[in-house]
């Protein structure tokens, strides 16, 4: 994809500012860090979750439990293919019963990934509360799902995609909008 298809939205400093605000919101919402568990959705949600956790741990001076979710087995499009590679989910050491879970994802779009994550969590146990925390809400929901904590709301056209870049995968931190070819939508 050529560079002129990409529109720069947030650079590393912007993302870090938003992350520290979201971290404060999480702690405020939860009334502290008791029973708090951050669970990122593979793949980029896991990275954003790690940034949030580091920020909360730095600000509050405590250890925060964490896990990760691979929602592949809970997708609603497995029967209509193509078949995605299955990854492994990681459960926090203490389990999730009675815990206050924060689901962390990079981009919230249709809400289908969140639906899958909720189903997976309830198969694992009975959390006390579940929050949804996303770096970018791009609108376009197809299910009645709304985030509790949002980094940035971005309005995009149907033929545009929002991409969150993380150092572990993309080599840098940032948010960009990509113009897709019309037939690719």
């Amino acid at each position, binding site marked *: 994809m050529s560079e002129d298809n990409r529109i720069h939205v947030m650079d590393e400093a912007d993302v870090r500012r938003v992350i520290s605000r979201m971290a404060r919101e999480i702690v405020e919402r939860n009334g502290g860090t008791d029973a708090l568990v951050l669970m990122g959705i593979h793949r980029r949600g896991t990275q954003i979750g790690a940034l949030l956790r580091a920020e909360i741990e730095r600000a509050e001076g405590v250890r925060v439990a964490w896990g990760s979710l691979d929602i592949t087995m809970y997708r609603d*499009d497995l029967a209509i293919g193509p*078949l995605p590679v*299955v990854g492994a*989910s990681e459960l926090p050491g203490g389990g999730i019963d009675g815990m206050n879970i924060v689901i962390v994802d990079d981009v919230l779009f249709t809400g289908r990934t969140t639906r899958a994550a909720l189903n997976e969590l309830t198969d694992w*146990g009975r959390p006390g509360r579940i929050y949804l925390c996303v770096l970018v809400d791009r609108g376009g929901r197809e299910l009645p799902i709304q985030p509790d904590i949002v980094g940035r709301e971005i309005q995009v056209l149907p033929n545009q*995609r929002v991409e969150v870049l993380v150092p572990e995968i993309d080599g840098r931190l940032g948010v960009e909008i990509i113009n897709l070819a019309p037939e690719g939508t």
Partner: protein
Amino acid sequence: MNESVSPLGKDLIGLEHLSSEQILSILDTAEPFKEISERRIKKVPVLRGKTIVNLFFEASTRTRVSFEFAEKRLSADTVNISSSGSSVVKGETLVDTARNLEAMRIDMVVMRHGSSGAARFLAERIPSSVINAGDGQHEHPTQGLLDLLTIRDHRGPIAGLKVCIVGDVLHSRVARSNIFGLLKLGAEVAVCGPPTLLPVGIAELGVKVIARVEEAVEWADVLNVLRLQLERMHGGYVPSLREYNRIWGVSRARLDAVKKDVLVLHPGPMNRGVEIDSDVADGPHSVILNQVTNGVAVRMAVLYLLAGGQPERAEAAKQGGDS
């Protein structure tokens, strides 16, 4: 109907015709499925709404139950048919049985059959996916795969490992699936057993023949000990079970005679005191129960991969924007 193509094709008949990439993709897919069996609620909705028939024309406990757990933990609907108690005893042919099942709209058939080639025969005649759960002396691909996964779990990558298959190679579909899979992944493979129980021309498959079990233990990193298939032997293969054990049995003394730590596998069911001694089967070298645990994960992976799709397009699908 969905048009997506499984990375394995329609069926899983044997490891002979799979590429090393396909075999590795099954093993890698099995890894995340291991965790599901450790959950409190051992179920994911991957095969929801799919109907699978387990068609067993030969006795089986482990394989049938393992497939059934794999299917149920993926939320498929399953039916078990065994030859006794079915229309097979009334003389119905294999194809007629399958066509009648097909008429009830099924998605997959898992079949064990006494005749080599039965799985391919069926696969060519019905549109459903066919998974071979053992056909005669031909192949038992999911056993081969779970052996590969267990070896990889305990000894790292298969390439370069020395694996010796010990015992009744002649009657063993497990041996054939193991040989094909291990060679494709780059292992050195040997067989060891009484000459009456080694197929003529086995070396042409690319395996070494070792004459004595002591030498096999000395040479190998991994021993896969095969069951003496007494039910398929109609006399003349071995003089007596005691003599077999004395000459070919894998005993603690034979393992202790070498310095290194040899991994011992057995596909089950074991004849304790014949091909394997109890203190080996229950001892520190044995990963026999790990094989059973891995069997469920491998079968889940095979069912998942046969249900459709292409792993190489996964990244594209993920970027399709369903966040």
